């Protein structure tokens, strides 16, 4: 595992763009478990208890079971990763995450050879997550990745930002970050990880498959029925900020394009 780090630095996964401020990152969130307004998570997420926390890892793994968060963290290398973050709603940020590579966690549980996909689930606790008291989405929130996507060194399980503990509104205590995909793929407050041989049905795709695919790679060439995907607004630029062009795979094409060789990304969006 120690060998992964230099490889990461050489590939230069960190963006050199200026990160958004801590305030911007923690007051402008989509986390419908706490409400649909961008400010709701910051207002209401303090009700969430994140300690104790454990992650159930099951399905096609060698060592299924409930993994305590403290236990997990003691075995992981925590890195800082400055990633671009692009929401499907056409806004974006630059976020200095702290976290470990998801593949480390999957290896901890041991991946069976039949496993092809990873399914993630968010906590369901309506008494602390007020948004879940209404049937806006089919709770709990579910996301999924193909195994090779999950094993990619860019794919992070974030535990903090700006060197601080991850705030609840950003998906504490443990969230996925897949920087080349639209933000909704980066599921928050994860309590369950299942390795499977079938493609998981992610929440938004189940609601509207025309708007949200399983892959949901950032792609300016694939039009979305409601938001233009060819450009984006970088949060923090103020009222007169110019829109910036959206880049394929959110700028991580060099690192991840190989995963999708031979696929028609306009069909498998």
């Amino acid at each position, binding site marked *: 595992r120690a060998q992964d780090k230099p490889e990461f630095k050489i590939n230069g996964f960190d963006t050199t763009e200026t990160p*958004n401020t801590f*305030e*911007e990152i923690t*007051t*402008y969130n989509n986390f*419908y478990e706490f409400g*649909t307004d*961008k*400010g709701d998570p910051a207002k209401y997420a303090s009700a969430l208890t994140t300690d104790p926390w454990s992650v159930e890892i099951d399905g096609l793994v060698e060592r299924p079971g409930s993994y305590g968060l403290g236990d997990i963290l003691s075995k992981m290398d925590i890195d800082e990763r400055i990633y671009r973050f692009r929401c499907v709603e056409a*806004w974006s940020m630059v976020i200095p995450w702290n976290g470990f590579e998801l593949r480390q966690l999957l290896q901890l549980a041991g991946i069976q050879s039949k496993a092809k996909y990873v399914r993630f689930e968010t906590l369901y606790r309506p008494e602390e997550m007020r948004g879940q008291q*209404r049937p*806006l*989405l089919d709770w709990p929130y579910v996301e999924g990745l193909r195994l090779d996507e999950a094993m990619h060194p860019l794919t992070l399980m974030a535990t903090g930002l700006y060197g601080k503990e991850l705030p609840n509104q950003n998906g504490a205590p443990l969230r996925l970050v897949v920087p080349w995909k639209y933000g909704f793929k980066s599921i928050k407050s994860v309590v369950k990880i299942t390795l499977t041989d079938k493609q998981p049905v992610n929440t*938004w795709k189940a*609601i509207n498959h025309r708007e949200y695919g399983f892959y949901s790679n950032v792609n300016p060439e694939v*039009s979305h*029925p*409601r*938001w*233009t995907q*060819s*450009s984006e*607004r970088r*949060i*923090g630029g*103020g*009222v*007169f*900020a*110019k*829109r910036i062009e959206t880049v394929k795979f959110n700028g991580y094409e060099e690192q991840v394009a190989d995963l999708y060789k031979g696929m028609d990304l306009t069909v498998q969006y």
Partner: protein
Amino acid sequence: MAFVDVLNNAVRRIPAWPLYIVAVIPPVAMFYWAITGQLGVDPVKNLEHEMGQLGLQVLILTLAITPLRKYAGVNLIKFRRALGVIGFAYIFLHLLVWLVLDVQILSQIIKDILKRPYITIGMAGFVMMLPLAVTSNNWSIRKLGSKWRVLHKLFYPAILLGAVHFVMLVKGWQIEPLVYLAIVTILLALRVKWSARLRMARV
């Protein structure tokens, strides 16, 4: 009924023109907050949404004036034109924010209008209100005669499109825009029943 009479008497003494002055305050305040960083970290979206929502609220008030008189006896008809014009102005500002501060790029604006149903619908509602705003003056009413009333029935589909636009733009089925749509639908339905009853009366 006493309260309604008091209200109607009070209204009689208030002119409509101060509404135009008061109406300037919210957009100016919001724009000031936006440029001074008091409108959150995404001031453009906030400005856009607030202007759109405020416009819809004022237009709903406009739509409520006739039923209010019919069913509650409250006569606010003298404010209707001002409200309609102000509501339109807010929607126009909402559109301007979207054009100039949000999307910015002309080719994308055109694509958005043609290809994204919620924008097409919102745009259609706006375009329908254009002739109404232009003819909201005494001269046009005199000039158009009975045609004026027919023309201004365009407001009904226009506000309905506005409410549908709001429902379509949010993710999932959120309650707030559905409440707006329900109010608009009820206010429109009250009118449908009416004209049916009138027709029956004539027969």
